[in-house]
């Protein structure tokens, strides 16, 4: 275990030093790696640990993005403050969805449908609110300053998103080791058996969705201030909901490092193939590539790639000793 922490610390050091040698384009790819690892981790906290499958997590990204952007543009409130407002709002919405799902025993696909419906309804509603830009969305004014959460170049975004990702891994690890995390895993494994052992399944499911929604929304604020443009499809759409769950699924659900590994594997693939296929006039083909990869993982590596990496590392680390 000590060795693993050492390995992770050196990897982190490399990542911290990387901007010294990378150009803007490559930094941008790393920002996306960290960002999707963070979103995947936030989703993982609910679905990976407590087992409730959400396919509507774009909803929380959207709440975060729209809340901080609206407050910044209309009330001149810094996104640094707005992001917490959005996070609390997302948490409340998450709790409402959780209440409906967990209190009335919607398990499995029924809970999935519930999460999709809320996200889709929100997408449609926002599309018809002029104050939020409607279908066209909102272009953010570019006023670079720390206080505005906006920066020139990619270096600041690189460190910000790296910080987000590292913090999310820390949260997941702390959760794993805590009472609450252990109860959540028990609920994931068998809700009735957990109840029979005195675990309040409802309470720990609610905790999972609250934490997950809260963190996901913080990512939404980052997205808005990195891309400078949000619209209902990009931050509330089904596409994002699927996009953000692929990394933890491929890396390994219910593990603190799975989403990170998944993002390092998938995000460069997505970015590079997207650019490559677009040049050849085949936009969208990268999604097919995704689909094939996801199918392969589900068929042959159901526990995610982390298991294999861990096995490989174990023998490697033993060799060193």
């Amino acid at each position, binding site marked *: 275990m000590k060795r693993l922490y050492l390995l992770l610390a050196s990897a982190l050091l490399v990542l911290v030093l990387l901007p010294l040698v990378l150009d803007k384009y490559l930094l941008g790819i790393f920002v996306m790696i960290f960002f999707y690892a963070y979103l995947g981790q936030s989703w993982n906290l609910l679905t990976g640990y407590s087992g409730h499958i959400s396919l509507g997590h774009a909803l929380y990204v959207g709440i975060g993005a729209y809340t901080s952007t609206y407050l910044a543009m209309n009330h001149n409130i810094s996104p640094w403050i707005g992001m917490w407002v959005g996070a609390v709002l997302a948490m409340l919405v998450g709790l409402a969805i959780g209440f409906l799902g967990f209190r009335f025993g919607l398990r499995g696909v029924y809970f999935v449908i519930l999460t999709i419906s809320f996200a889709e309804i929100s997408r449609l509603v926002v599309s018809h609110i002029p104050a939020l830009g409607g279908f066209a969305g909102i272009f953010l004014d570019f006023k670079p300053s720390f206080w505005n959460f906006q920066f020139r170049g990619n270096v600041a975004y690189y460190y910000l998103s790296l910080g987000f990702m590292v913090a999310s891994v820390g949260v997941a690890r702390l959760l794993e*080791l*805590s*009472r609450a995390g*252990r*109860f959540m*895993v*028990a609920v994931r*494994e*068998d809700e*009735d*058996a*957990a*109840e*029979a*052992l*005195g*675990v*309040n*399944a409802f309470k720990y499911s609610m905790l999972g969705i609250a934490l997950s929604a809260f963190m996901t929304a913080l990512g939404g604020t980052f997205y808005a201030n990195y891309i400078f443009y949000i619209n209902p499809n990009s931050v509330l759409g089904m596409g994002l909901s699927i996009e953000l769950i692929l990394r933890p699924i491929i890396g390994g659900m*219910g593990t603190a490092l799975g989403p990170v590994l998944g993002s390092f594997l998938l995000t460069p693939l997505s970015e590079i193939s997207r650019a490559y296929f677009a040049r050849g006039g085949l936009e969208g083909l990268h999604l097919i590539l995704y689909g094939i990869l996801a199918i392969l993982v589900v068929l042959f590596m159901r526990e995610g790639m982390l298991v294999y990496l861990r096995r490989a590392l174990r023998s490697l680390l033993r060799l060193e000793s």
Partner: protein
Amino acid sequence: MMLLQVEKLEKHFGGLCAVAELSFFLEEAQILGLIGPNGAGKTTVFHCLTGFLPIDKGEVKFKGRSIKGLRPHQICRMGMARTFQIVRPFLNVSVLDNVMVGAMLREKSLAAARRLAHSTLEFVGLEGLSQERAGSLPLALRKRLELARALATRPEVLLLDEVMGGLNPTDVDEMVRLLREIHQKGVSILLIEHVMRGLMALAQRVVVINYGRKIAEGVPGEVVRDPQVVEAYLGREFLDAAG
């Protein structure tokens, strides 16, 4: 003292009456057997007592307090723990972590819960397997794990749903020894059991149900000679064998 009182319990599934006017009680430091043929409603009774099924009619009191409308975790917290007939271990976590979930109910610190989990595993003889994935255990050991998890919640009453079912005679004897020891520590036990060898060795009193109704009650030696019980459940051969 009366620990558990069941009064005129009724449970219907649509038109089917699974449990009807069932009354019995469990005294402190007692082992009570609940037997009956397949489909008699034994597991339904357990589900009603532990909050997994709502009670249609009647009353169930644990330590003098009604448990009607309480959720399973609340009933467990009051001191009544159960096992499942079809064992339900948390497959993807270690044996130790399985028991930790139960242990954390009373022990607020993780270190104390871990100690309790270890000592419980040692008690049931699973200590050597504590780091194994629960999914890798064979049935006999899963039954012991199921027992260990429930024990780790430090219950006053244990509801055991066929913990000996599917075990070979050696494992049955081992389980009987374990349950005796648990009983000696002051835990009362309500036992659903088909394995007569185990039941006869343990139960001080037996309640027999058929079609959800009580058809006999008493000490095991007498109950198994009751013609109605023999007819409904044991079969003539058992009477001949019991002499």
